[in-house]
Each structure stands twice: as structure tokens, then as C-alpha cells.
């Protein structure tokens, strides 16, 4: 049989044409995965708003650009992005490429940090075009591994810097905490100037039995940046996983957070703040899958939206038939500061067990006029009063970040952007 000649070029094929010769960082260790991702790209397209999961999220602005994979040789000044007082091992990516020359970490510690050639299998289902793109054209792969019973008191700081106009970064990070290990990771995303860039990063976390992993994500890129985060988390029995997603800045941000509770007596906390303004867009999609009994999950996301910004929250909590005695709470609260700002929120709860405690709720409103008047009647300007109320609103979440240096850094960055009250 002759192969049929396909003259139509898919959007994905057009998209990859400018970097199709690039060899995925996964190629050496997992050629099969790369093969699978490349095959998937032949059939996948950028999702349209007709797809439920992308109903409010336009991807056309990413799809229509000519991105480049740029391993910038130039020296990048990392000092503005170091978090004061964090005292962390520092791992730096520039345009998605791991940069040993800029990083400062030691493998002699309890944690092994390895780039690329390892056998820690990465298994992304290539369920959407972003996952496939990343696996097929990964810029760098970072494995973080903490051995059984090891407790790391100082955190690791993974710093993603977007340094070039039209750069597309596709880093992969895996974190594996073995039985009873403990690890804290801070991941921050910045760009050197407000240039157009696209960071499409995958994260795989495995929390083994009785292990604890905390992750603080600080997203602080610019108005012209695009950021896709795919976070896939597996937790085993008695494990704990906490994640804070703190979105300070970014033109287009989509977080896909999937947490699978794969054993009994697991606890997980998901907190987030987002403060989009101007024409920024922030979308948080989360999925918490309770599969075993006696687990707790707690989710709180708070948004303050100004100007013409748009926010999306979609939180799904599944309580499977075996997951009796589940406690699952989910809440999304938003404040709109302008008439043009828009929030699309959909909390979802699917319960298939009968002995559970679950709640979900969402509110979207304006600033409380009576509180504003009360503050102004004591001499505060309208702007100060609004900022003071905003501060109180997000402090609720920021105070849950159990790392003082991260908390201070986030507050400082928000104040710097004139979003919070000092």
C-alpha cells in the first residue's frame, strides 16, 4: 500500500517547524517516551475554548507565535532573583536549560541533584499538546532525589529565568522523596525584562510512604510572558504534600495541578493567590483524587483581579468509592477591583463514598464598602484603604506559607508592584 499523502499541516506541526531539529533532553534516557510524544504531536492540536477544560483559556496567542529554543550563552545576573534569607541550594535554569555555571548546589548533601542521564522514569501521559511538546523537545531534565529517612532542613531553590525574546523553555523536573524523607522546594519563575517568552514546564513529584514534600511556587514573570505549568503529584500512605502557588505577575499563566492520593492517611494542602491586573490572565486548574480512606485535603485559592484581567479557577475533588472517612475542603474566594475584571470559577466535587466530610464553595465580590468607609473615616486615603483590605484578603493565604523567607519575599514583591499595604 502506498502511504496516503497528507497535504494538510496540523497546527502543532506548524508550531514545531522552527525547532523540529532540536533533540529532546529526554532522548538519551527515555527514547520511547520521546517517540510517544512525537507521535502524539501528529494528532494533537492546541485546545480551543470548545474543550471544557480550556473553556476560558485561549491558547491561540501561544500557537501563533514562532518560538525558538535558545540556550543562551550569555551570562545572566541572578542576584535580583535570589530570595533573601532563604539559605537554599540554588539550581538555575535559563530559558529552560539547566545552568551549572550559575547554580550553587552540592550533591554531597542528603539530596542528589542530577541532570538528564538517569533512570528515574518520567511518565507523562502526553494527554495534551503541552505535555507532548515538552517531552518531545525538553530543554533540560532535573532529578531531585532524597533518600529514605533523610530530612533536609534547608530548602532547594529552583530558579527559572527567561532571558531572551521569543524563547521557549521546556524544562522537566522530578522530585522523589523516599520513605520518611523530608524536603522543601521553592520554585520561582522570572524574566529579565518584560520580553515575550513561553515557559512550558513539567513537574513530577513522588512522595513515598510517610515522606513530606513542600513546594512553594512563586510566579513572577512579566506582562508578555506565557507560562504553562503541569504539576503531577503522587502521594503514598501517611505522606504529606503541601503546595503554595503564588502568582504575582504574568501575562498568561495556566497551572494544571493533579494530585493523586495513593494510600491511606495522607494529608495535602493546596493554597494559592493570584493578583492579575492590566490584561493579565491567570488560570488555576486542580484535581485532587482521593482513592483511599482516611485522607485529608484542603484547598484555598484567593484572587484579587484589577483592570481588564481575567481569572479562572477550576478545582475538582474526587472521592472514590474506597475513600471513606475522607475530609476534603475546597474554597475559592475572589475580589474584583474593577468593573472590567472577570473571574470564571467552578469548584467541583464528585463523591462516590458515603462516610465523608466534604465542602466546596466560591465567592466573587467587590470590596466591602462599609469597611472602606470605616478606614477612610479614620484618615486613610481611598488607595491605602483598598490596599489594606487587599492585604488582609491575601494574608490569609500568605500566612499559611510556612517559610518566613518565602513569605517575606512574596510580600516584598507584591509591595514593590504596589499591590499591598506596607
Amino acid at each position, binding site marked *: 500500500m502506498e502511504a496516503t499523502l497528507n497535504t494538510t499541516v496540523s497546527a502543532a506541526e506548524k508550531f514545531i517547524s522552527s525547532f523540529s531539529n532540536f533533540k529532546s533532553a529526554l532522548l538519551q534516557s527515555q527514547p520511547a517516551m520521546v517517540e510517544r510524544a512525537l507521535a502524539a504531536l501528529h494528532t494533537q492540536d492546541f485546545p480551543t475554548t470548545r474543550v471544557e477544560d480550556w473553556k476560558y483559556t485561549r491558547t491561540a496567542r501561544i500557537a501563533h507565535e514562532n518560538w525558538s529554543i535558545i540556550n543562551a550563552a550569555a551570562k545572566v545576573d541572578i542576584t535580583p532573583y535570589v530570595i533573601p534569607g532563604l539559605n537554599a541550594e540554588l539550581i538555575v535554569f535559563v530559558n529552560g536549560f539547566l545552568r551549572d555555571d550559575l547554580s550553587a548546589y552540592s550533591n554531597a548533601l542528603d539530596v542528589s541533584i542530577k541532570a538528564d542521564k538517569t533512570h528515574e522514569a518520567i511518565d507523562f501521559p502526553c494527554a495534551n499538546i503541552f505535555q507532548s511538546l515538552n517531552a518531545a523537545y525538553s530543554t533540560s531534565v532535573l532529578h531531585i532525589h532524597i533518600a529514605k529517612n533523610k530530612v533536609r532542613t534547608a530548602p532547594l531553590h529552583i530558579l527559572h529565568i527567561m532571558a531572551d525574546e521569543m524563547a521557549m523553555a521546556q524544562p522537566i523536573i522530578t522530585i522523589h522523596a523516599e520513605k520518611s524523607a523530608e524536603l522543601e522546594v521553592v520554585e520561582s519563575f522570572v524574566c529579565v525584562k518584560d520580553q515575550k517568552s513561553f515557559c512550558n514546564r513539567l513537574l513530577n513529584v513522588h512522595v513515598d510512604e510517610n515522606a513530606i514534600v513542600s513546594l512553594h511556587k512563586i510566579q513572577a514573570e512579566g506582562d508578555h510572558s506565557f507560562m504553562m505549568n503541569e504539576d503531577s503529584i503522587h502521594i503514598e500512605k501517611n505522606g504529606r504534600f503541601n503546595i503554595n502557588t503564588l502568582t504575582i505577575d504574568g501575562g498568561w499563566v495556566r497551572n494544571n495541578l493533579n494530585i493523586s492520593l495513593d494510600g491511606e492517611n495522607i494529608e495535602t494542602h493546596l493554597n494559592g493567590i493570584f493578583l492579575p491586573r492590566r490584561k493579565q490572565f491567570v488560570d488555576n486548574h486542580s484535581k485532587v483524587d482521593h482513592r483511599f480512606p482516611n485522607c485529608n485535603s484542603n484547598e484555598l485559592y484567593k484572587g484579587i483581579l484589577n483592570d481588564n484581567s481575567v481569572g479562572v479557577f477550576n478545582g475538582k475533588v474526587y472521592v472514590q468509592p474506597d475513600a471513606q472517612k475522607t475530609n476534603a475542603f475546597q474554597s475559592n474566594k475572589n475580589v474584583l477591583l474593577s468593573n472590567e475584571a472577570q473571574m470564571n470559577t467552578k469548584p467541583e466535587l464528585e463523591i462516590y463514598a458515603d462516610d465523608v466530610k466534604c465542602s466546596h464553595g466560591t465567592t466573587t465580590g467587590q470590596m466591602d464598602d462599609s*469597611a472602606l468607609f*470605616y478606614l477612610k473615616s479614620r*484618615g486613610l486615603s481611598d488607595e491605602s484603604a483598598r490596599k489594606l483590605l487587599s492585604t488582609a484578603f491575601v494574608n490569609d493565604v500568605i500566612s499559611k506559607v510556612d517559610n518566613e523567607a518565602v513569605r517575606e519575599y512574596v510580600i516584598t514583591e507584591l509591595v514593590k508592584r504596589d499591590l499591598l499595604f506596607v
Partner: protein
Amino acid sequence: MLSIKNIHARIEEKEILRGLSLDIKPGEVHAIMGPNGSGKSTLASVLAGKEEYEVTEGSVQFLQKDLLEMAPEERAREGVFLAFQYPVEIPGVSNMNFLKAAVGEIRKHQGLEPLSAKEFLKLVAEKSKLVELDGQLTNRAVNEGFSGGEKKRNEIFQMAMLEPKLAILDETDSGLDIDALRIVANGVNALRSPDRSFLVITHYQRLLDYIVPDFVHVLYKGRIVKSGPKELALELEEKGYDWIKEEFETAYS
């Protein structure tokens, strides 16, 4: 200090103040009494600058300035203070941060240097004693979870911190037991001075046993229909408001 001339004010389409006039000189304490719905709280809201109220006629001069032209925060900085009838709970905003900001704004407006952290805390310690406000309450979120009495004491504490020229107490006594009432009144009395005036709005004469006014005015249907010395309050307590209403209806029918 304050000169109200023939003000008319309405909320939505309902006219509540219908030609109210009142003069308050420095150091004077004026009590405004009146039956429910007579416009007492509206007067307080209009003076503090609440946006829902629209002044359709008349003028208010405060220290030779047009008060009605000022935004609520400008009025506060010029020295007007309203003790709210229903103090607002503001979760997440600490009393201390809020007060520090307020004191800072007012001092800036007066051309004074900002207080150091130490000076500020000293002031807090001193002023909170006036109303026997627990140190823990001053550190909590603004009014959140406060009892009715604690909220009113917090109002007087804020007043003491901000040292206004004109303090308006809007039914500060309502819902207070006699002990709380005494504490609040003592706080107010401690702040009385020759250059600070008070407008005490109340439904009950009881408060005026503790905060003794120089003048008592009766508000009815949006107008001051009777004024007199402090003894007028006692007469009202004894006879109720019906005779005032009758006098008014006769005079205007």
C-alpha cells in the same frame, strides 16, 4: 467650630434631614436626642461623609472650611471623628496596622513627623488605658469577634489616638451595660478639652448622666425642634417625646 445651616439630605429618594441648623463652639458638648427615625444617624453620616447620603440644600462649615466638599478621609485629617453606631469588623486587618496608618496620615496632614515605633506603642499603651481596653484586643483584627462593649470602647480608643477637634458619637451607648457605659463615658470625659467639641447622639438620657452636655437638642422629622440646657434631657426622659411631637405638629399644621 462647626456651623450647620439649613441642611437637607436624602438617601435614595427619601428626604431625611429637612432644614437642620446647628452651631457648635470649641469645647462645647452638644447632645442630640430624638425618637427613632428622626434623622439622628443620618446627621452623623452626613457629617462623616458617607456617600449614600446626598445633601440637596444647605451648608456645613467646619473651622471655616466647607466640610461637604471634603472626602471622608480629608474630614478625618481635618479633625472630624465619628464613633460608629455599628463599628465595622474587618477580618485580617490588625488594629495596630490600621491605627498606625491612620495616625500617620493625620500627622502628615498636620505637618508633623511620623511617630517612631516606640512612641507609637507608648501612645497605644497610654490611650488604651483610658477605656480599659485589653492589650490583646488592640493586637487583634479590627473589631473582629469583639463584643458590643469592646467595639464601642475600641471606637473611643481610636478617638483618643487620633485626637480629633470634633468628635461625633453616634449612639455609642446603645446596647451597653452600665459598666461598659461608664467606661466609655469616662474615656470621653478624659478627652474633653477647651478646644475639642463633641456631638453626642443618643436615644437615651442615661448616657448624659455621665457625659454632661452643655446643650440638648431634640431632632424630629429632620429638624431641630427644641433646644435647651442639660435639664431638657431629664424632661424628655420623664415625659417621652410625644409632647414634642404634638408641639411640632401644632406649630406646623
